[in-house]
Every structure is written in C-alpha cells, then in structure tokens.
C-alpha cells in the first residue's frame, strides 16, 4: 500500500492532469474574450446594413425619410437577433 513507486506514478499522473487543466482554462479564457469581441460589432453591423438598404431604396422610390426609418428598425431587430443567436450558440458549447 505504501509503495513509493506507486505514489510517484500517481503524483506524476495528477500533475499532468493539473497542467492539462491549466492549458484548457487558458484556451477557454481566449474563447470567452473572442466571443466578447464578436458580439459588439454583430449588433452594429446589422443596423448599418439596414440603414444603407433603406437609404438606397429611398433614393430609388423618392420616399426620402420613410424607408430609411423602417429599415433602421429592421436593422436593429436583425442586430439583436444576431446577438441572441450568437449567445445561444455559446450556451450550446
């Protein structure tokens, strides 16, 4: 039971497990930071695209402020939808 060789191997295994866990933790931290960077632009980009589409359509049909307002709202909705989807994807992992 008090075999020193046995203890040594067990110590080695435990240490290697600990090290692996440290690397995994660092990897996870990186993933979280990456996610944080991702979410902000995801929200803004959809609003920008919505406004651009509204602007172009307004110029086509000559309905100056109406479509830009409508597509701004659609863009905001799309942005929030993007963020929700990204958050769901994160939770699945």
């Amino acid at each position, binding site marked *: 039971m008090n075999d020193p060789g046995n203890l040594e191997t067990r110590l080695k295994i435990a240490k290697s497990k600990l090290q692996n866990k440290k690397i995994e933790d660092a990897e996870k931290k*990186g993933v979280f*930071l*990456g996610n944080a*960077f*991702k979410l902000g*632009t*995801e929200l*803004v*980009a*959809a609003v*920008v*695209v*919505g406004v651009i*589409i509204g602007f172009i359509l307004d110029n086509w049909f000559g309905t100056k402020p109406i479509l830009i307002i409508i*597509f701004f709202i*659609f*863009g905001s*909705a*799309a*942005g929030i*939808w*993007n963020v929700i989807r990204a958050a769901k*994807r994160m939770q699945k*992992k």
Partner: protein
Amino acid sequence: MDTNPMHQFNVHRIGPEIKINGIDLSFTNASLFMLLSAIFILLFLLFGTKEKKIIPGKIQLISEMLYNFIGKMINDTAGKKAKPYFPFIFSLFIFVLFCNMIGMLPYSFTVTSHIIVTLAFAIFIFIGVTILGFVIHGFKYLKIFVPSGVPIVLLPIIMIIEIISYLSRPISLSVRLFANMMAGHTMLKVFGGFVISLGLVAGWLPLTFSVALTGLEILVAFLQAYVFAILTCIYLNDALNLHH
C-alpha cells in the same frame, strides 16, 4: 509630422508607378508587408516541417500546435464535412495572424488596419460561402432566410430581418478586425507621443502604459485572427449543414 498618430497608416508607393487602364497597380508599402508576411509564413512552416522528429523542436512544435488548433476549431464548429476547407481556413488564419503580428513590430505597417483589405477578405468569404451553399443545396439554400415554426403573418418581416442579418456578415467580419487593429495602433502611438512630449519628468507613466498596451495589443492581434477564422467556420457550417 511623425508625431501624428495616424501617420503610421499612410500608404505610399515604393518604386515606379504602374498604371494599367487608369487603375493604379503600383507596389506600395501595404503590398510589401503582405508579401513579407507571406514569405515569413512560408519560411516558418517550411522550417517547421523540414525535419519530422518524434520529439519536436520549437518551430516544429509551434507549427504542429497551430495545425492542431485550427483542425480542432474546424471540427468543433463546422463538423466533419468541413474537412476539405481546412487549407483555406488555415491560410486565412495564419495570414491574418502574421499580418497582425508583423504590424506589432516598430516601424512596420499593419496591413489589417485598412478596411479595404479586411473588407476584401470578408466579401470573398461571403461570396464564396453563398456560392457553396447554392452549389450544395440548390435553391433549398434560400431556406436559410425562412426559419421553421414562424406563423405566416410574421414571415415577411422575419425574412427581411434574416436577409439583413445575412448581409451584415461581411460588414461585421471586416469592421471588427479593422477597427480593433486601427484603434489599438492609434492608441499605442498616442501614448508614445505622450512619452516624448512629457519628457523625462512625467514621461514614465505613459511609458509603462504603452508597455502594458503592447502586451494587450499582441493578445488582441491573436484573438482577432482567431475570431476571423472561427466566424468563417460558422458561416461555412451554415452553408454545409442547412438547418434552422
């Protein structure tokens, strides 16, 4: 003036002016640094894979780690079907990474801090993924805009929202990389300027800040390359495995 924090982003011509049909195709410092990072990548990976030892050396270890890292990322996010696209994702990741990292060297030029570069990447990915989706699924790929379980009354509104959300992909992909790189480098330059203008008296404080910021910037440079690659994987996944 060199103290202008935006001066580092100037693109200037190197060598003779080349004009074809009124399009300026001259060799600039941006092209030089893209070429440099491509050469560095080639050398790095060539040295890394030259001797295949069982106990790897440092360069071999790093290149193997990069390979495993990207391979695992693709497998986790896009599944087994995405295996054939490994070379594309890997070259994309490593090119963005090297451009970012070479930009961290003093007197160098950060290619990825220009929106035209990142937008070109993003639009290329966007168009490629869209074509891939249509090739694999045919017109069924349009289902991506029609989520299941939505009442018919709401369907037109949801479709507009989905289309906007789809079109926003290249914008968010490119703006994220460009804005992070440009903001970081401007901030470093501004703090560097503080060191000069405050001199020996109080210049130590911004100097410590810029040392810390350099560390942060290296982290951001890696993370942005990672995020760029992982989002490409996610878009690829949407095109390969159509489900909503």
